[in-house]
C-alpha cells in the first residue's frame, strides 16, 4: 500500500476537488432540504436506527434520514476527510475519545441554543450522562444515546468446578498489596497442565492450561477494560479536573502500585505473559476456547460473548477496594451535529428525536446497548434477560453513582501514543512501574504545549 501517495492524494484532492465533490451524491446540493445523512459504526444497531428513522419521518414528514454505516476503523478517517471536503454527514455518532478534538477544531455544532429553545429535559438521562457532552469550553455538543460500564465475564463451568459460589464472585474485595479475595479466586481458577490449581501444592506456573484472569492489552492511557477500576478503588484519579484533565497522574504511587500488583499476576502465573496476551487473536476468542476463567469487559461486548457457544458465560460484580466501594468507568455515545451542515434544523430535530424516550425505547428493545434515557432501561433489561443475561452488575455502580468518566481530552490521540508503549513496556517487564512517571511527564508536556 503506498501510503504517502494516498496521503498526498487526499491532501491534494481536498484542495483541488472541493467544488467537484460537493456536487456528487452525498453533496448538499443533490439532496432535498429536509433530507439528512446520519452515520454510525455499529452494524448491530443499524436495524434499530433504521426503525427510528422510519418513526421520525412519520412524526416529521418534512424530514427524512438516510443512514450510512461504516466499521469503526474506517469511520473516523472517513469522517475527517468528510470534514475537509465538505461531505461529512449532517449528524453522526460521537465518542468521548474523539469529539473533544472535533469540538476544539470547530467541526461539531454546539447545541446549547437548541436545547434551551426546545426546553429539552436533560433530567431524563442516567445520572451524569448528559454532562459528558459538555466540552472543555463549557458548551454542549450532543445528547446521550447510550452508556456502558465494565464487569467480569466468567466461565461458570470453571467456577463451579473450582467450588466458587456466585455469592463469593459477587462480593470480591481487592487491595494492591495481596489482591484481596479477588486474587484468591483468580488463583484458585488457574489450572496448570497437570490439573493442579494455583492454590494447590506443586502448581507449575510455567505450564498453565487455564489462566484465572485474561486481559486484552496493557490498557494504554485509559485502561477502560483492563485496570481502570482497580486504580479507581485505590483512590486514584486520571487527572486534575476530570474529565478535562490539564495535568495527569500516571506517575502517582497509587497508580504505579496498582499496575505493579496487576502485572504481578503474570509472575505468579495467573495471567499470561504480555507477549502471549498480545499474540492472541483477541481475548474473547481465547475465553470462548476455554483458556481464561475470568475476563473483564465492557457492556458493549455482551453480544459478542453471547455468540461463544462452547462456554457458559455469566457476569460478576467488580471488587470492593480500599476506598470502600466498587467503581466502574462509565462511558457512552452521543449523537452530534457537524458544524458544516446546511440543514441545522433538520439535524437538530433528528438528534432531539434520538435523545427522546420514543427512540430509545426502540433501541432498548433490541437488547444490544443500554439506553441513555433512564425510563427506557427496563425494556433493555428485559431484552437482555431474554438472551440469558442478568445485567444487574453493569447497572449497580451507575445507580449508586460510583462511576468515573473516560479521561476525555482534545489531545487523546497524543496521550495514547505516549501511554500505550509505556504501559506495554511495563507489562512486558522491560520497564518498571516507576518508569510511568517519565511517561506522565511526556503526557503533561503535550498538554501544556497545546493549551
Amino acid at each position, binding site marked *: *500500500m*503506498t*501510503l*504517502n*501517495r494516498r*496521503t*498526498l*492524494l487526499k*491532501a*491534494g*484532492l481536498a*484542495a*483541488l476537488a472541493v467544488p467537484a465533490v460537493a456536487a456528487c451524491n452525498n453533496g448538499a446540493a443533490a439532496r432535498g432540504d429536509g433530507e439528512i445523512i446520519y452515520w454510525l459504526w455499529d452494524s448491530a444497531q443499524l436495524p434499530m436506527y433504521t426503525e427510528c428513522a422510519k418513526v421520525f419521518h412519520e412524526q416529521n414528514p418534512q424530514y427524512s434520514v438516510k443512514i450510512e454505516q461504516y466499521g469503526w476503523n474506517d469511520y*473516523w*478517517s472517513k469522517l*475527517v476527510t468528510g*470534514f*475537509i471536503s465538505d461531505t461529512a454527514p449532517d449528524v453522526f455518532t460521537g465518542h468521548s475519545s474523539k469529539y473533544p*478534538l*472535533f469540538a476544539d*477544531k*470547530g*467541526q461539531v455544532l454546539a447545541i446549547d441554543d437548541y436545547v434551551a429553545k426546545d426546553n429539552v429535559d436533560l433530567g431524563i438521562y442516567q445520572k451524569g450522562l448528559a454532562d459528558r457532552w459538555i466540552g472543555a469550553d463549557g458548551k454542549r455538543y450532543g445528547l446521550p444515546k447510550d452508556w456502558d460500564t465494565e464487569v467480569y465475564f466468567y466461565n461458570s463451568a470453571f467456577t463451579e468446578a473450582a467450588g466458587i459460589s456466585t455469592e463469593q464472585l459477587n462480593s470480591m474485595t481487592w487491595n494492591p498489596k495481596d489482591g484481596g479475595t479477588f486474587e484468591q479466586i483468580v488463583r484458585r481458577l488457574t489450572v496448570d497442565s497437570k490439573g493442579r490449581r494455583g492454590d494447590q501444592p506443586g502448581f507449575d506456573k510455567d505450564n498453565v492450561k487455564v489462566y484465572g484472569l485474561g486481559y486484552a492489552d496493557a490498557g494504554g492511557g485509559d485502561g477502560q477494560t483492563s485496570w481502570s477500576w482497580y486504580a479507581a478503588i485505590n483512590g486514584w484519579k486520571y487527572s486534575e479536573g476530570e474529565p478535562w484533565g490539564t495535568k495527569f497522574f500516571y506517575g502517582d504511587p497509587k497508580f504505579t502500585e496498582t499496575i505493579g500488583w496487576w502485572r504481578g499476576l503474570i509472575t505468579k502465573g495467573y495471567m*499470561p*505473559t*504480555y*507477549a*502471549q*496476551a*498480545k*499474540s*492472541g*487473536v483477541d481475548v474473547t*476468542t*481465547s475465553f470462548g*476456547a476455554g*483458556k481464561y476463567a475470568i475476563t473483564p469487559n465492557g457492556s458493549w461486548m455482551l453480544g459478542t460473548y453471547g455468540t461463544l457457544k462452547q462456554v457458559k458465560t455469566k457476569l460478576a460484580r467488580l471488587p470492593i477496594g480500599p476506598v470502600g466501594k466498587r467503581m466502574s468507568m462509565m462511558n457512552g455515545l452521543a449523537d452530534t451535529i457537524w458544524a458544516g451542515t446546511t440543514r441545522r434544523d433538520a439535524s437538530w430535530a433528528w438528534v432531539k428525536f434520538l435523545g427522546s424516550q420514543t427512540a430509545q425505547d426502540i433501541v432498548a428493545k433490541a437488547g444490544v446497548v443500554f439506553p441513555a434515557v433512564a425510563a427506557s432501561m427496563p425494556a433493555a433489561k428485559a431484552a437482555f434477560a431474554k438472551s440469558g443475561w442478568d445485567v444487574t452488575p453493569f447497572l449497580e455502580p451507575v445507580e449508586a453513582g460510583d462511576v468515573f468518566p473516560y479521561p476525555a481530552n482534545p489531545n487523546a*490521540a*497524543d496521550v495514547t*501514543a505516549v501511554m*500505550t*508503549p509505556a504501559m*506495554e*513496556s511495563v507489562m*512486558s517487564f*522491560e520497564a518498571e512501574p516507576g518508569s510511568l512517571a517519565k511517561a506522565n511527564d511526556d503526557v503533561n508536556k503535550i498538554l501544556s504545549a497545546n493549551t
Partner: protein
Amino acid sequence: MIFIAPATLGFVVFYIWPTLRGAYLSFTEYSLLSAPKFNGLANYERMVQDSFFWNALGVTVEYVVINIGVQTVLAVGIAMLMYRLTKSITVRAVILAPYLVANVVVALVWYWMLDVQVGIVNTFLGWVGIDPVAFFGDSHWAIPTVAGINVWRHMGYTALLVFAGLQTIPKYVYEAAEVDGSTEWKTFWRITLPLLRPVLVMVLVVTMIGSFQIFDTVAVTTQGGPINATRVIYYYIYERAFTRFDFGYASAMALVLFAILAVVSLLQLRLLRAKESDLA
C-alpha cells in the same frame, strides 16, 4: 501532444501536484481541520530528535533485510527448480497462488494460525514438544513473523520474474559448460547468477521499494506493537497523519522516506551495474 494529454493531465493532477503539495505541507503545521501554518524547518528539526522516528526507520530496515534477503534466495531457488526440473504450468500456477490473495486476508489468516493459544501452528509445535511461540506478541519475533508472512506471499511472484530472466540466458552457454565438464553447482555460480544479474537488480530494486512500504500486514495485526517493535515507518506516518492529525510532520517524514528510497535505488543500480550484461 494531444494523444499524451490525458496521461499528462492524470500525472500532473495525481502525482506532480500532490507531491508538490506534500512537500509544501512538510514545512507547515497542519492539523487537517484548520489551515496549514508555515513553520519553516521545525518538522525536520523535530524528526532528528524524535526517537519514535529513528526506531521506525530501524524497525523498517530490519524488516526489509529479513524480507528481501529470505525472499530473494528462496525466489532464485524456486526459479531454478522450475527452470531445471519441471515445465509444468500447474506448478507455476500453484507457486503464484499466495500472491493472488489480498494482503490483508493473508495477514489475518496467518494471525489466526499463529495465535499463541488457539492457533493451529502452535498446536503443531506442541505435538513435537515445542512450547508455544508468541509470534506476534513477542517483540523479538514480531518483525521476523511479519517479514516471513510477506515472504510467503511474494516469493512465488518474485520467482516468476527470476524465471523469466533465466529464459533470456542463451542455451549455448550451458551446452559449452556441459562440454567442459562443469557441475550443476559450478554452472549456477559461474554462469547463471552472473548472467542473471541485470534481472536480479531490477527485481531487487522493485521488491525493496515495495518492502519499505510495509504497512497493511502491521495495520491489521500488531498495529505497531508490542511496545514499538513493529512500528514501521509507514505505520508511524499513518498514525501521525490520520490518528493524531499531525499532517505537516507526517508529510515531512514521507518526504524524507522518499529521499532515502531514491538514494537506495540509485546506489543499487550503480553498484550492481544494472545496465550492462556480462554476456557481451
